[in-house]
């Protein structure tokens, strides 16, 4: 067994090639082949019918909106739209599949051959990577399995399983990239940026709520390594990548693992692996005894799809503003450059900044808080910034308090800490924790006198004209007031006290 090698060493020696397979659950009202509702969270098997249960004799009828959404996604990804194509049956047995075949597309996808430009920040400025899109096609989702009797709730070691078919038949769009080469050490960031950008596009199109935590955006990451100039290596496929952060971590972890295998003279096995959130590494799935043969053939119960070219052009011309265009517009409005914008996107906070600006927060302040403090807190807690319990209105309020002098930067951080921890609104946290800036001059002067008395030599220096030495006294007063003094005010009062003019 080989051990993974450190990332820097791995990418110094090998070239990673990545490929992403993303499934988007369309937010249609009804399922792909029947009128069953698609709402998330319904009681098990309460949203099924003969069609999506695959009862003998049932027949599918295609949801027009599913076709339209798939085409719009393809257009947004610069794909060519098929003039004529068919659905196909992918045949295999599995208990979450009511018909023991999945209706999908095989050699005739609806959309092919597109691209998506993604931007990642690098030390040398933002890098644009053009991710080729191999295909975008439409298929039906399966039911949901829960595994019972085992310790982990996972499939291994389970005694039996339970199936809920509510999800069976929900329309899925599968987006497959061409292999992405030349990303080098930035492969994990590129992967994450790609999924982020895809997610933003889906939101912009309004075709899905793309919530990774709810499964309406699912991502499989393919990774292979090769020596520079050599043939492409064997790839692994990693599943259970349930957040943007996990995309990055999974790719990184696979690079380290595969490099370790190759360095020790071994061979990378073509396999499906499972990503673990807690450990940040991948483990192999149960390897299959026999290779699967899906025996694809055209679905005889559905007729071919031939999108009217005029209609496709209408859809193309009514696409919403591309996220990249949208971002350029924001960058100009906020007076920031590509690098700063890429940083916001990469941290997954662009929309949060946008929402905060809409709530009245100055762009600079919004960026500062989201890309700085909140990203730090999110990373420490292992969550996405968007899931922190702080709203744009909260930020607007805190900024107000700072502007009025009631809070300083250090206190503001403590207020946000409290808000995120669920202690209440900014005002409630200020009150509960007693975080107001000390504005009472009397209290400040008392603290100043104490500090001066404690450091007479410093007091001498200041009186002697060394104004810089005032910092030590100010620091002592800040400490004494637990940071709740306005440092500039303290300095002002101190110099006044000592009769020194600040030049």
């Amino acid at each position, binding site marked *: 067994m080989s051990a993974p090698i450190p990332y820097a060493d791995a990418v110094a020696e090998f070239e990673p090639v990545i490929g992403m397979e993303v499934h988007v659950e369309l937010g*249609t*009202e*009804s399922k792909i082949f*029947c*009128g*069953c*509702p*698609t709402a998330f969270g319904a*009681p*098990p*098997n*309460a*949203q*099924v*019918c*003969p069609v999506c*249960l695959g009862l003998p004799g049932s027949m599918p*009828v*295609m*949801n*027009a*909106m*599913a*076709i339209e959404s798939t085409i719009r996604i393809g257009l947004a990804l610069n794909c060519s739209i098929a003039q*004529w194509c*068919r659905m196909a049956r992918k045949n*295999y047995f*599995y*208990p*979450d599949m009511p018909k023991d075949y999945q209706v999908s597309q095989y050699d005739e996808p609806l959309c092919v051959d597109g691209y998506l430009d993604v931007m990642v920040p690098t030390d040398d400025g933002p890098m644009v990577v053009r991710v080729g899109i191999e295909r975008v096609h439409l298929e039906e989702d399966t039911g949901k*399995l*829960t*595994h*019972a*009797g085992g310790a982990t709730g996972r*499939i291994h070691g*389970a*005694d*039996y*399983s*339970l*199936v*809920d*078919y509510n999800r069976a038949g929900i329309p899925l769009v599968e987006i497959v990239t061409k292999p992405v080469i030349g990303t080098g050490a930035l492969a994990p960031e590129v992967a994450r940026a790609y999924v982020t950008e895809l997610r933003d596009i889906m939101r912009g199109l309004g075709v899905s709520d793309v919530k990774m935590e709810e499964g309406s955006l699912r991502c499989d990451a393919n990774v292979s390594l090769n020596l520079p100039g050599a043939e492409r290596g064997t790839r692994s*496929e990693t*599943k259970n990548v349930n957040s943007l952060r996990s995309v990055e971590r999974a790719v990184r972890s696979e690079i380290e693992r595969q490099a370790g295998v190759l360095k020790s003279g071994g061979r990378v096995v073509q396999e*499906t692996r499972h990503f673990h959130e807690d450990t940040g590494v991948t483990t192999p799935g*149960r390897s299959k*005894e026999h290779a699967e*043969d899906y*025996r694809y*053939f*055209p679905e*005889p119960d*559905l*007729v*071919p*799809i*031939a*999108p009217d070219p005029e209609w496709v052009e209408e859809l193309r011309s009514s696409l919403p503003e591309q996220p990249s265009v949208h971002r350029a517009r924001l960058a100009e409005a906020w007076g920031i450059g590509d690098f700063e914008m890429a940083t916001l996107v990469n941290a997954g906070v662009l929309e949060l900044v946008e929402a905060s600006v809409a709530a009245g927060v100055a762009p600079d302040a919004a960026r500062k808080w989201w890309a700085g403090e909140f990203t730090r807190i999110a990373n420490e807690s292992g969550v996405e910034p968007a899931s922190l319990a702080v709203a744009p209105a909260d930020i607007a309020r805190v900024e107000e308090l700072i502007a009025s002098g009631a809070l300083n930067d250090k206190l503001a951080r403590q207020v946000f800490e409290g808000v995120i921890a669920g202690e209440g609104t900014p005002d409630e946290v200020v009150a509960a924790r007693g975080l107001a800036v000390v504005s009472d001059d009397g209290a400040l002067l008392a603290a100043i006198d104490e500090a001066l008395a404690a450091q007479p030599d410093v007091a001498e220096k200041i009186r002697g004209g060394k104004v810089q030495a005032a910092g030590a006294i100010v620091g002592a007063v800040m400490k004494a007031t637990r940071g709740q003094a306005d440092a500039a005010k303290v300095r002002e009062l101190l110099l006044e006290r000592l009769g020194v003019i600040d030049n």
Partner: protein
Amino acid sequence: MSAITRAEVAHLARLARLDLAEDELDHYAEQLDVILTSVARVSEVAADDIPPTSHPVPLVNVTRPDEARPSLARADALAAAPAVEDERFRVPRILEEQE
């Protein structure tokens, strides 16, 4: 020379989830061989530039509007199930994880 071997029949049975007995494998291999030899004459037809017909009726673009309709009552959905637990279909333990 036979068109299909016993081993191939075993493979087909596994793909099709049919637990055939040993003697059945031989029996079906024989019969499938005869049938395959007979149907193989379709390859005698020169059809390189002939388009395949997957649908006898030339319809395209049959769709329905995206409107939700009432589902089956849950009791009806589960009524015929061999095993039910927690309002779900209970199935035996799964060995081979599916992608």
